[in-house]
């Protein structure tokens, strides 16, 4: 391994944004046939570094060199995405950029020919694509429309697209976020095959388990600096976590606690899917006090319908939804008033209004409250006092109650939402992907808050795609697949493999067998 040549060398790269140092003197080499994991919390500088690599930003100091065809290293011109592509660096983004109505082949060819060319040279492209598929083990039907592909298949198309453009250094940004464990395993198999073919892979992640499973070497960024660069062999999760965070990460533990009365019951509920998305079919579920019910599933299998139903934004077409013993009134205002705390899936899209201040966001759901307004006028001093108390209680790092939420980091925005939702001491909490996109420290804080609420007696419905999160927090887990909800099973009876199979929708076959 040590003998293989360096194909990409980042030397002394520094990037400042005003007073903020996003990258500080980062050195990073990657060798041919190596899988390098780039590990770091949000804001550690991973994205900035990759943006510099791809020419989206220009580094203030330092240079990037790439292996040339003669084997020597040659400096990559800064600030040119074109040059990065030509040098054989390809990136697979977390969010796919595919044209749904075109076929796999058309998507892959798109943008490679000159605009003036009258034909797409499909025959030649097809031959080349077949070659790439057999080399890499990435198999997709080239004539299938992208809209008919699964998420895992779409990711293969993205990787093929990058390989087709001649990439020899592949950068994957959080590639497993949208995959089931099985799909992730087959991605890893592909990456190993590519590695055997002499390609180099930079694998950006914050999932320690995956880093340990796939990477040869791991580089850890923290606060813009590289704090570790070592072979994966001989490291473990605890060590990587503390390198990433810079201190010991507290692990929240669920203490055994007997559940109380039922707070939420779904009885064979159908929710129509909105905008071509999967709805809910015959879903039954029960959440009791002091109980965390986890909902596992691959994104887009009906979670949005389930969350929308409980958040009061979508209605059940069939079936009964009972909240605290009474039928649920489907409107955000009435569910909030009834005592549900709602942590939405997309905190920027649904959770906060960025241009409003922290104090304003904290009262957004309770504008009718006489403590918030009198005769239509906002009671700013009361609103600010309320905000100060919550900022202190939930440790929101900010300049004060009047600073716009837009300026906060993702973790702090989530704290604002937690403060608003949990500060009311709700009896039922809907937590939809509450730790997604958060760094290890912030995620641990979210988990701790949920466990505190559980101890207080709240029932919690936790919808997540992160199986580790579900397995460590939930009392029982139900799996959602194609709009159907499996019965909730005690977490002790479940394994990662079993959950993965359920998530792939194999529940029915198992029952038949």
């Amino acid at each position, binding site marked *: 391994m040590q003998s293989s040549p360096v194909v990409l060398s980042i030397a002394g790269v520094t990037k400042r944004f005003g007073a903020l140092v996003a990258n500080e003197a980062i050195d990073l080499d990657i060798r041919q046939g190596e899988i390098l994991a780039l590990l770091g919390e949000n804001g550690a500088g991973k994205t900035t570094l990759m943006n510099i690599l791809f020419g989206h930003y220009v580094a203030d100091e330092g240079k990037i060199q790439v292996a040339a065809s003669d084997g020597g290293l040659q400096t990559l011109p800064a600030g040119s995405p074109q040059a990065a592509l030509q040098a054989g660096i390809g990136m697979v983004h977390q969010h796919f950029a595919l044209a749904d109505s075109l076929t796999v082949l058309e998507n892959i060819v798109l943008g490679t020919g000159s605009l003036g060319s009258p034909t797409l040279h499909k025959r030649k492209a097809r031959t080349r694509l077949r070659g790439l598929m057999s080399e890499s083990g990435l198999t997709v039907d080239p004539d299938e429309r992208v809209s008919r592909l699964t998420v895992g298949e779409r990711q293969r198309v993205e990787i093929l697209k990058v390989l087709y453009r001649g990439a020899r250094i592949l950068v994957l940004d959080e590639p497993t976020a949208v995959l089931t464990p099985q799909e992730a395993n087959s991605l890893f198999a592909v990456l190993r095959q590519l590695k055997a073919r002499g390609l180099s892979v930079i694998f950006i992640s914050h999932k320690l388990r995956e880093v340990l499973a796939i990477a040869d070497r791991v580089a850890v960024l923290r606060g813009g600096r590289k704090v570790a660069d070592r072979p994966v062999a001989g490291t473990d999760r605890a060590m990587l976590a503390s390198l990433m965070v810079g201190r010991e990460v507290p692990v929240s533990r669920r203490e055994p606690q007997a559940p109380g009365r039922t707070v939420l019951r779904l009885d064979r509920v159908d929710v129509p899917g909105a905008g071509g998305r999967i709805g809910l079919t015959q879903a039954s579920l029960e959440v009791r006090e002091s109980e965390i019910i986890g909902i596992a599933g691959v994104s887009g299998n009906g979670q949005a319908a389930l969350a929308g139903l409980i958040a009061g934004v979508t209605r059940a077409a069939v079936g009964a939804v009972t909240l605290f013993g009474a039928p649920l009134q489907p409107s955000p205002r009435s569910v909030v008033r009834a005592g549900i705390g709602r942590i939405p899936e997309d905190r920027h899209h649904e959770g906060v209004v960025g*241009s409003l201040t922290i104090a304003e966001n904290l009262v957004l759901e309770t*504008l009718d409250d006489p403590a918030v307004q009198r005769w239509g006028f906002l009671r700013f001093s009361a609103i600010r006092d309320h905000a100060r108390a919550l900022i202190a209680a939930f440790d929101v790092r900010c300049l004060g109650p009047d600073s716009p939420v837009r300026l906060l980091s993702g973790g702090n925005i989530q704290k604002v939402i937690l403060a608003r939702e949990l500060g009311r001491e709700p009896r039922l909490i809907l937590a939809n992907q509450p730790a997604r996109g958060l760094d290890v420290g912030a995620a641990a804080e979210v988990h701790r808050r949920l466990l505190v609420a559980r101890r207080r007696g709240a029932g919690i419905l936790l919808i997540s795609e992160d199986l580790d999160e579900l397995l460590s927090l939930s009392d029982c887990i139900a799996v959602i697949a194609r709009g159907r909800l499996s019965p909730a099973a005690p977490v002790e009876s479940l394994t990662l493999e079993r959950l993965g199979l359920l998530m792939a929708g194999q529940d029915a076959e198992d029952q038949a067998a």
Partner: protein
Amino acid sequence: MIRLEARGRPTALVSTAAPLGALLAALALATLPLLAAGAPVGPAFARMAAGAAGSTFALTETLTRATPLILTGLAAAVAFRARLYNVGAEGQLYAGALAAVMIGSGAIDAPSSVLVPLILLASALAGALLMLGPTLLKAKLGVDEVVTTLLLNFIVLLFVQMMLEGPLKDPMGGGWPQSEPILDAGILPPLVERMRLHAGLILGAGLCVITHIVMARTVLGLKIRAVGDNASAAQYAGISVTGVIVMVGCLSGALAGLAGASEVAGLKGYLTADLSRGFGYAGIVVAMIAGLQPLLVLPAAIFIAGIFVGADTMSRTMNVSNYIADLIVAFALLSVLVSSLFVRFRLRWR
């Protein structure tokens, strides 16, 4: 190559210097058409400044011209804050003016203290009602309000022309298509002796302050700001986005309708089909230059009015076309928009 890079947080210096720099840039750009017209730049600008603010007469004329712009500017500022792109202030102004003459030119005989508020109320109501259709269509069916409000302008103007040729035509008007005059009791009083400046300015300035208070300090204002910035989060939090959109639309229409009443009852005295010199559209420019801040609408409207009035003087005395005013206003709008880009991004040369 030039590249744009996001600034972390714009400094106070940058965010105050940018709009001022933009206005200077607009004037600098205005030298180009002046040079093309063969006019000496220095004296031309001097005449313009004198024409806009050089005497009591000039100043009152500028403020008179600013009055409708303040109201239509507020109309645009309020609506645009909620991302409701009401470009129909021109039509709402005419609807307000129509309501003003229907109430004020003899239908009701009452003392001034009753008639003036009635006229204002009627014109605000007319403007607000005109926004009901577009906002409901937008909220319920997703119909683009830019199209509906824009097209309503032509419908309203043609309707006004029909009324002026028909039922509202003044029999004493010598055959001209104009309405009967507003009763003396319905006239907005002048502010300066023997000048055209009228109490509409007080109304506009007062409404700037009131609108600011509504936007900054009331529940409604908070809802408007929330819906404008992130409608899905507002909806999720239980704010009725439909309700807010309709509310804001009516508020915006009412402000534009008041501009019509102010022109009819304050300046002209009767309604003609050429009452507005594009005040509805110029209001959009005013609102953009003011950064959609109600309090800044006042200076922005006075600035735009000053340019129009000053350019009139300049064109009379220097023999250049007064279309230069339109050019300067266009330059001002463009440079303010560009400057707002520089507040958020910095240029990098490489």
